[in-house]
């Protein structure tokens, strides 16, 4: 029993050692640098955030507003601990507003400067007034920022992991605020300079404009008229012979007219073909002579003109939701509109920013046009834009509609004929047919993988393919197998098809080995059964009732309980060990003859022998000795049976 325990313990230790050597699972990988994200340390660098804000303030102070806009957007995405989220949000808002204000002031100052350079002093004055309002608020915004950073520093104090760096970032902030004040002073100075220039040059002039008609159709003409006068105190004095520039919207073409003796001007302009609701008519006066430049300021006036045109409509009647790459599809619709020219209108199709088709509407405005998706366009979802171009001859606007389409591939129909079982060695044949919409798919590449080898062919003119190969006698492919067949048509709109074919491979060798395994199992089962039956024959009754096993000598005294038990025990030991008690042996001699390897049984028999000796030689044998002897006999018998097993 001790040996069995040692063997089991040794085996378990060997098992665990094997696993430990082979399975190093819990240590972090040392060669590949990455971390388990679930266990990664959550770190918030307060000094880093503060430092980034100081850089942002620097961008703002130096007028690098593109950089500051990008940075503001990024800082808005920073993930911060919940405890300081509100403080960060407040400071972020202040910074963003300051950036927007300074950016706005900078833009307006440039605009004012351009207007002044172009002698548009009236416009420049309006812009300068707006700048003044913004500058008045700027100082307050900077003060809010200073208070904000103090508040923020207190709030995020608990998250400071590097005090020197944090203090350094705070100091940098103070430097940036000083820089911002300098910028404020600079803008103030610039404003004053521009304002002084605007107010110092000449007498203000007033230009009026009257349009007729109020609504004009595209391509038609409109008359602009008005007066140019200068302000002399409360009087308005006409300026004759001055050039007035007339312009319609953003059109590059202008009309130059002269004022008459009463300062009156008039001109006729063509309405551009802009299919919008309105356009702005502009008239402007700019001094051109040295005298005028010294004495009069420029002026300009605008007025809105309503544009008339015929509104074109577009209805898409049919547009597919799914199209195949490189394959044509049809889009149908109708051009509509009251008093609109609907026939003969040019229709264009755009996909992914590229024009993919064009055509014309037919009588009644309907159209059904074929369009082809460019081959090579990546598969996915797109917007197909269908546009009707404007028709200037009929004063009709354009129109467009879009449709969401999915560009994808289609799958051809593949029929594969494969065997359900194969006897190795033999020639194996796979064949089949590839078709699409009932038509054969020719020149499609067909490949197959089986048992680590690849085979390939192409479909013929009927879409038929055939793969034949030799399967050798090999046990490695015996049993269930799977062959993978790939079919790739050469047409761009047909996708790859993969088919799996399951079949069983058998061989004489496999059948033979299987049979041998069955026979071996039968032999093992038969042996085990026979052995158990033989052991079951060794029953107590047979041991004790068979006269052949009785010892040859008889005791002089009656067989009492102890000696009866001893008799039976002696019979068992002689049968099991093969050691026969000689006539000249004492009870003790027989015990000493027993092989020590039957340790347990020997101990039990020795105990029974001792009781027998007491029974034989003692004057007063114990009354409980019989029970003890029978108990020992039962235990001995049980030990015998387990040893036999």
């Amino acid at each position, binding site marked *: 029993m001790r040996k069995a325990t040692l063997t089991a313990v040794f085996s378990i230790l060997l098992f665990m050692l*094997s696993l430990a050597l*082979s*399975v190093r*699972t819990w240590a972090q990988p040392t060669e590949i640098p990455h*971390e388990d994200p679930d266990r990664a340390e959550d770190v918030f660098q307060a000094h880093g955030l503060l430092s980034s804000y100081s850089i942002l303030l620097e961008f703002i102070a130096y007028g690098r507003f593109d950089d500051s806009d990008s940075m503001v957007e990024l800082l808005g995405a920073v993930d911060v601990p919940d405890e300081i989220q509100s403080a960060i949000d407040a400071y972020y808002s202040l910074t963003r507003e300051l950036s927007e204000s300074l950016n706005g002031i900078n833009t307006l100052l440039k605009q004012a400067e351009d207007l002044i350079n172009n002698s548009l002093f009236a416009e420049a004055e309006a812009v300068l007034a707006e700048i003044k309002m913004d500058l008045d608020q700027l100082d307050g915004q900077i003060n809010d920022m200073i208070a904000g950073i103090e508040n923020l520093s207190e709030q995020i104090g608990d998250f400071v992991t590097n005090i020197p760096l944090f203090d350094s970032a705070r100091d940098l902030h103070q430097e940036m605020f000083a820089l911002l004040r300098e910028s404020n002073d600079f803008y103030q100075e610039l404003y004053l300079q521009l304002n002084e220039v605007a107010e110092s040059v000449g007498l203000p002039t007033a230009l009026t404009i009257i349009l007729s008609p109020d609504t004009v159709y595209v391509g038609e003409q409109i008359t602009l008229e008005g007066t140019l006068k200068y302000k002399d105190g409360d009087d308005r004095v006409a300026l004759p012979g001055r050039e007035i520039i007339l312009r319609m919207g953003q059109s590059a073409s202008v009309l130059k007219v002269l004022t008459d003796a009463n300062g009156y001007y008039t001109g006729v302009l063509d309405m551009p073909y802009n299919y919008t609701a309105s356009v702005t008519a502009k008239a402007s006066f700019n001094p051109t002579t040295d005298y005028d430049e010294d004495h009069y300021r420029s002026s300009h006036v605008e007025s809105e003109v309503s544009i008339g045109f015929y509104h074109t409509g577009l209805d898409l009647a049919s547009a597919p939701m799914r199209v195949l790459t490189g394959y044509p599809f049809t889009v149908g619709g109708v051009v509509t509109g009251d008093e609109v020219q609907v026939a003969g209108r040019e229709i264009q199709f755009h996909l992914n920013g590229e024009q993919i088709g064009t055509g014309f509407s037919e009588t009644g405005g309907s159209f059904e046009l074929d369009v082809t998706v460019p081959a090579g366009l990546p*598969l996915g979802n797109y917007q197909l834009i269908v546009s009707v171009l404007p028709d200037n001859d009929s004063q009709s606007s354009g129109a467009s509609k879009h449709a969401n389409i999915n560009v994808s591939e289609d799958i051809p129909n593949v029929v594969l004929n494969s065997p359900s079982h194969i006897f190795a060695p033999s020639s194996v044949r796979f064949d089949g047919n590839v078709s699409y919409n009932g038509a054969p798919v020719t020149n499609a590449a067909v490949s197959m993988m089986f048992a680590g080898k690849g085979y*390939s062919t192409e479909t013929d003119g009927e879409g038929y393919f055939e793969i034949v190969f030799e399967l050798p006698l090999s046990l490695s492919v015996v049993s269930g197998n799977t062959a993978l067949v790939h079919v*790739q048509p050469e047409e761009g709109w047909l996708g790859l098809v993969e088919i799996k074919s399951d079949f069983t491979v058998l061989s004489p060798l496999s059948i033979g080995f299987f049979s041998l395994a069955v026979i071996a199992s039968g032999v093992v089962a038969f042996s085990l059964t026979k052995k158990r039956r033989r052991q079951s024959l060794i029953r107590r009754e047979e041991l004790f009732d068979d006269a052949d096993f009785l010892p040859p000598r008889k005791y002089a005294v009656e067989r009492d309980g102890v000696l009866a038990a001893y008799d039976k025990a002696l019979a068992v030991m002689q049968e099991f060990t093969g050691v026969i008690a000689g006539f000249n042996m004492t009870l003790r001699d027989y015990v000493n003859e027993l092989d020590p390897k039957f340790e347990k049984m020997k101990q039990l028999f020795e105990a029974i022998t001792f009781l027998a000796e007491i029974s034989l030689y003692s004057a007063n044998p114990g009354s409980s000795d019989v029970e003890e002897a029978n108990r020992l006999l039962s235990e001995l018998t049980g030990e015998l049976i387990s040893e036999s097993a």
Partner: protein
Amino acid sequence: MSRLNYFWIVLAVFSATLITLWFYPPSADFNVENIRWNGASQFSSRMGSIAINTFEDIPDRPANTVLIVVPYIEFAPGELEQIGSYILGGGTLILMDDYGHGNEVLKSLDVDYRFDNIPLLDPLIHYKNEQFPIITNIHASPLTFEVTTLVFDHAVRLVNVPDTEIVARSSSFSFIDLDRDTLYDDDMEAKSSSVVAANTLIGEGRIITISDPSIIINGMIDMEDNYTIMANAVALGTSNPKVYFDQSHLPEEELSEVKSGLRTARNGAAYPAVLSVMVGAVLLITLRPLWARRR
């Protein structure tokens, strides 16, 4: 106990050891059977990818196929040429690297840009800490369809990428940690946006380069749009691609080597000669008592 019983006990324990080793899930990084945080089992399963242990398994017709390579081990002679042929033939290579041998591939393909192999940290726009930079500067293209945010795990950058081939960039708060102390040193380290992904057409095929392979591990694949960009990369150009995941350039662990040995032994046992010997031995053992009894 008889000697035979000892033999059976040892054999049972030995068999249990082998079975355990056979079925125990591996723990190697990027292994397609590794279900732990550092494995690629989820990505491989969702992609339906085929793990290959040699470039000989790359199909001869690379069109409509995708090959994913994470090269932590040097390439053997001839392998770089195989990759080149694969791409020129119409295959899509997804090269994911940070501190490995990805530059060997780029150099062999005459591509000008390279992996920087220096840590890219972002102290502000990150997940948990600066080693997990969040990428939000995504250039619109079919590759980045519905991709707005990526999360990296110990990444590097790509240098000298042409503007037209840039796919994604890190935030302008990120910096290259030249002295590898995880702290921003304004004397020698500049904060700027760095390129982290590129898409380059080569011949009939393309190479998609990403400067952090860890976005496909189980712990990272479901973060933000990490899986989406990989799905887009795989689906570029075909709706039913075959995806091959190279496992031969990943560091092997002892368990994987043991499994490989067991596989070799199993394959060897399939040979008729070996199987014959084994069956004969079994028959000898089982029938020996019968013969002994007859004698």
